[in-house]
């Protein structure tokens, strides 16, 4: 049996239900600065908390996210400002009734009384920006609407806080001015300077992670901005990685359902207008003519097809695999210029299959000490700026693999094991399936799988094939020697 207990070696983990008993320490936020990088499917939110401990030996700082934010956030990392090491975070579990959500960040070392620390929380929100207006004709521009709450909530008292919304272009169509903020500021609550809108500073905000504050004082804000790139969404991604020791090959195949999440196309697609736009080099911002993907170096037999056959419009530039020693320093990629059969307009879908072979030695090592192979399989191939709504990664191990262990870069929604029977298998190959949801460009980790393959398992396939052929020959041998004719003398 497989041991489905992933040994989690990575620093942060967001356990959905924690069994730990929390202890809340007392802090004061001297300043909170939230910076929102407005974009398409993925919006990056960096919040810096300048905190001051109000009690001795404070070991964990508690961050609050509104349920809205929590729902959208698919990637979260907390660091001490200026440091690379991510801090361990622990989720308090879901509390849907309160309207907020608490997360404990374990501090690198306990803070003394009145000691200060800058904690940087970086989150990626998916599907946070919606196309607005929700439909646009082919020649229209694309504008998105980002909605969030005015105040960064916290279980602690905050002295001053501000929020900055940075748009990718200076063309901000509209933004909402918050009202009734006399208690917190006397200036205009929102100011716009070129591509940035600043809300605040707001002073003396009481502990805001409570229902009263959320219902009375908190208010929504929204920014509508122009976005010059198509909003990409991968509705589903199914990756199958098949390991073959006989062929020394790692085959990776992605079944991708791509969707243009921009404004729905109003009216119809006109090829004439599309060709005119291409001719005058004024492409529509929400039309996706193609993608450029970075595939691993040293791959071969790359294929790109859909349900009705090979897609002839793509180009691949393969980079040779660098020697192992140089690998960490010079990341090399094969570049696939992928052009769907038709340009993807707002709301249009395109499903396709992309796959390639690579040398197993590029991603596997044999640990002679434990007698195990360790194989690295990337969770996904990054599609720049796209969110993957649902991903299913299946790793198919060689036939007869035993003692299977795996380690995930972050926990999966579900993990299961099954048996896959393909090319001339007799007993089938063990396979591991991991399901993920809402992957972002920051989720480019690797899954490590280790397993043993005994020699007898290696020899299983040639033995089976040899036995089958032997049987065939023996049957022929017998068949040739049986004379079924009724009149043996007349046959000649």
């Amino acid at each position, binding site marked *: 049996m497989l041991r489905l207990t992933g040994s989690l070696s990575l620093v942060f983990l967001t356990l959905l239900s924690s069994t730990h008993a929390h202890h809340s320490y007392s802090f004061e936020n001297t300043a909170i600065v939230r910076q929102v990088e407005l974009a398409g499917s993925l919006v990056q939110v960096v919040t810096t908390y300048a905190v001051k401990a109000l009690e001795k030996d404070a070991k964990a700082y508690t961050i609050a996210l509104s349920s809205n934010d929590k729902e959208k956030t698919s990637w979260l990392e907390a660091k001490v400002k200026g440091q690379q090491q991510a801090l361990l975070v622990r989720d308090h579990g879901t509390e849907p009734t309160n309207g907020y959500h608490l997360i404990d960040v374990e501090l690198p070392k306990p803070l003394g009384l009145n000691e200060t620390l800058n904690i940087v929380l970086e989150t990626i929100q998916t599907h946070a920006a919606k196309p607005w207006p929700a439909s646009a004709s082919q020649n229209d521009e694309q504008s998105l609407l980002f909605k969030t709450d005015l105040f960064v909530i916290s279980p602690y008292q905050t002295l001053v806080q501000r929020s900055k919304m940075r748009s990718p272009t200076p063309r901000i169509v509209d933004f909402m001015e918050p009202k009734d903020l006399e208690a917190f500021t006397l200036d205009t609550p929102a100011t716009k300077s070129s591509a940035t809108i600043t809300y605040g500073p707001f002073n003396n905000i009481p502990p805001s992670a409570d229902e009263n504050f959320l219902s009375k004082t908190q208010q929504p804000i929204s920014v509508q901005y122009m976005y010059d790139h198509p909003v990409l969404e991968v509705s589903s991604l199914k990756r199958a990685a098949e390991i073959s020791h006989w062929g020394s090959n790692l085959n990776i195949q992605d079944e991708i359902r791509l969707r243009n999440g921009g404004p729905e196309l109003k*009216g*119809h*697609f*006109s*090829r*004439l207008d599309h*060709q005119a736009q291409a001719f005058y080099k004024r492409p529509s911002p929400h039309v996706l003519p193609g993608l450029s993907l970075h595939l691993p170096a040293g791959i071969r037999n790359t294929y790109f097809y*859909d*349900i*009705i*056959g*090979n*897609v*002839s*419009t793509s180009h691949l530039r393969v980079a040779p695999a660098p020697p192992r020693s140089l690998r960490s320093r010079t990341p090399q990629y094969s570049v696939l210029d992928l052009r769907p*059969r*038709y340009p993807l307009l707002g*709301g*249009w*879908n*395109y*499903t396709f299959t992309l796959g390639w072979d690579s040398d197993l030695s590029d991603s596997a090592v044999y640990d002679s000490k434990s007698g195990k192979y360790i194989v690295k399989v990337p969770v996904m191939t990054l599609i720049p700026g796209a969110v993957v709504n649902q991903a299913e990664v299946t790793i198919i191990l060689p036939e007869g693999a035993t003692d299977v262990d795996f380690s995930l870069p972050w926990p999966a929604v579900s993990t299961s094991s099954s048996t896959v*029977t*393909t*090319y*001339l*298998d*007799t007993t089938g190959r063990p396979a591991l399936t991991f399901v993920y949801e809402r992957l972002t460009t920051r989720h480019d980790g690797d899954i490590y799988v280790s397993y043993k393959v005994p020699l007898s398992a290696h020899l299983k396939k040639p033995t089976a094939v040899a036995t089958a052929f032997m049987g065939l020959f023996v049957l022929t041998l017998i068949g040739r020697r049986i004379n079924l004719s009724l009149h043996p003398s007349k046959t000649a």
Partner: protein
Amino acid sequence: MSMAYPLPSGLSPATVTNTASLIRIVTLALISGAAIASRLFAVINFESIIHEFDPWFNFRATKVLASQGFYEFWNWFDPTAWYPLGRVVGGTIYPGLMATSGVIYNILHALNLPVDIRNICVLLAPGFSALTAWATYMFTKELKDESAGLLAAAFIGIAPGYISRSVAGSYDNEAIAIFLLMFTFYCWIKALKQGSAFFGMLAGVFYFYMVAAWGGYAFITNMIPLHALILILMGRFTSRLYVGYSSWYAIGTLASMQVPFVGFQPVKTSEHMAALGVFGLLQIIAFSQLVRSHLSSKQFQNLLFVAVIGTGILGSLAIVGLTYKGWIAPWTGRFYSLWDTGYAKKYIPIIASVSEHQPTAWPSFFMDLQLLMFLFPAGVFLCFKQLRDEHVFVIIYAVVGSYFAGVMVRLMLTLTPVVCVSAAVALSTLLDTYIDPVEPLVPEEAAPSASGDDSTTTSASGSKKAKKPVFGLSESTTTQSTPKLRTRPGIFGLDARLVVIFNAFGMLSFFVFHCTWVTSNAYSSPSVVLASANPDGSQHIIDDFREAYYWLRQNTPETSVVMSWWDYGYQIAGMADRPTLVDNNTWNNTHIATVGKAMSSTEEVAYPILRKHDVDYVLVIFGGLIGYSGDDINKFLWMVRIAQGVWPDEIQEPNYFTPHGEYRVDDQASTTMKNSLMYKMSYYRFAELFGGGQAMDRVRNQVMPKHGPTLDYLDEAFTSENWIVRIFQVKKEDLLGRDLKSANAFSQGKKRKRSKPTVRRRAIV
């Protein structure tokens, strides 16, 4: 006996037979390899894809069979075809092809070889071509010998006439049918030769397979009775013929009736009556033979003979009478068109509109058969020289096959096997004669005349080849010739042999080059994907069809009905997976005529037709931008003709021509033409693409008017990259109950009006 060149001696007969059989097996394997390999141009130049039109349906049906099992396939009712009528697929197809792929698929999957069903379908035809080569070998072996068999196998393996319908991806019934045809004929010949009920039964079983696989089974149904009848008329009735025919007919007919699409046709339609009639005749003759064996009176025999003829005539009259009464269906239109090439054009334009139903042009005989075309008559002549029963068969086949090949392009396919067989017989006889080292014996009185020619040639070549044995005058004079040997024809000298053999070899080499060239250039295009060359010479793929079909598949509701001309019905169903009004299974002429009418009428007339049929999208093929000549404007006259057949008052072909009788699309085009839906959809916004320059239709080489047609009832929904496929969405009825034309005019007019008040308001401020 003198030899032209020494043969190795001292070999045991067992070694010779074993070596010969090994060489035969290796040769057959190589021929199979060549047959398969030469069909793979399409896969190598393009990709593993299903070709053309009908194969897309077969592929779709096979997918149903592979995924849902045979039972579901048998009962499959396809509601998406012939919308809103639907199609009972299980009962209206020849399931042999799909069943074959399904069986192969299941076997491979049972062996844990997960081969994609598409690849099985793509490679089925090349695979069966190897089997065809083997079947042809067996057939020709019965006719002459193994060497002729090998030649025939090689010919059929690479003859373009057969390759044209069996390249990889051409997943059609013919792919397996030619193998079945040849193997049934082989079994029939074998049954006839041996009087074997076993081979008769085998012929029946393979006949059943053929019936299940291809509508062309009627060819076997009539060939074998014809052969039997001619043998009877030649006075060659034997018990072997009786046993062979009876077992074939009984088993084959009963089995063939199990195919739902065939059903009771074998006893009810005229096409099958010949087989039944000959079966009856054979029984009568056999009975009379039995009676005759017990009687000796010459007069009685004569009486019996008269009785036989009389019964035969009565039987025929009965059949005619039953046909007249309607018990037996008369011959179908398709069958008539085989006898009268003008019939289809007059009465069934749908059949005539298919390019492969046109009479064959002479060059295509050379293109498809090259060298074989010249060897063919020689082979038939050689059959006359021997004229055993099987030779009679080949002669009949040659005559019938030649006739049919002349009538219809696609029936070139049934001619090809017999051409290969006869050509192999001819060439093999030639090679036998010239490779045989035995020198003829020259009678003394003929010696002086023969020696004169001979000595000059031998001295010339003899000096070059030292090892050549001495022969000619000196030897023949020493040997005493007998009158018996004198009559034996033969060849003198090695040079005479070499000249002919070298020549034959050269012709065969050219044949191989020709076949390769024709296959790679003419027959290996999938027609779904078009190829052109980039300026740098590299291949550029024009993939408009799949672009548009895939767009339909991914971005329209699954229930949206697509109307197009019937040629694209199967492709839309297979690639776009959307319901279609008409498709390549042209069973309902009226439905096709309805589509033709919609395409050739004005928008106002067409719109109610479209709405009544729930049409959401209309798809047209337009080649004017890149010069793709197989587009809908070029097929348009057939649509008009077919529509005219049903609505002669509303659609008239002459209206689509200019007063001078020209078929034009530029500003001289007739008003009917310009107002037709097809014209409007094809050229909608086409002139704008040229940005004020001269808009040129590259297929018809005509300059299009500056202002193209406008559409009120349809919206352009999608146009592919090279404008080959254009898809239009049918607008819904106007919400205010106006007709769409005035609604459109109003909305355009309203825009102008609205702009005035805004200006005024601004002026006030």
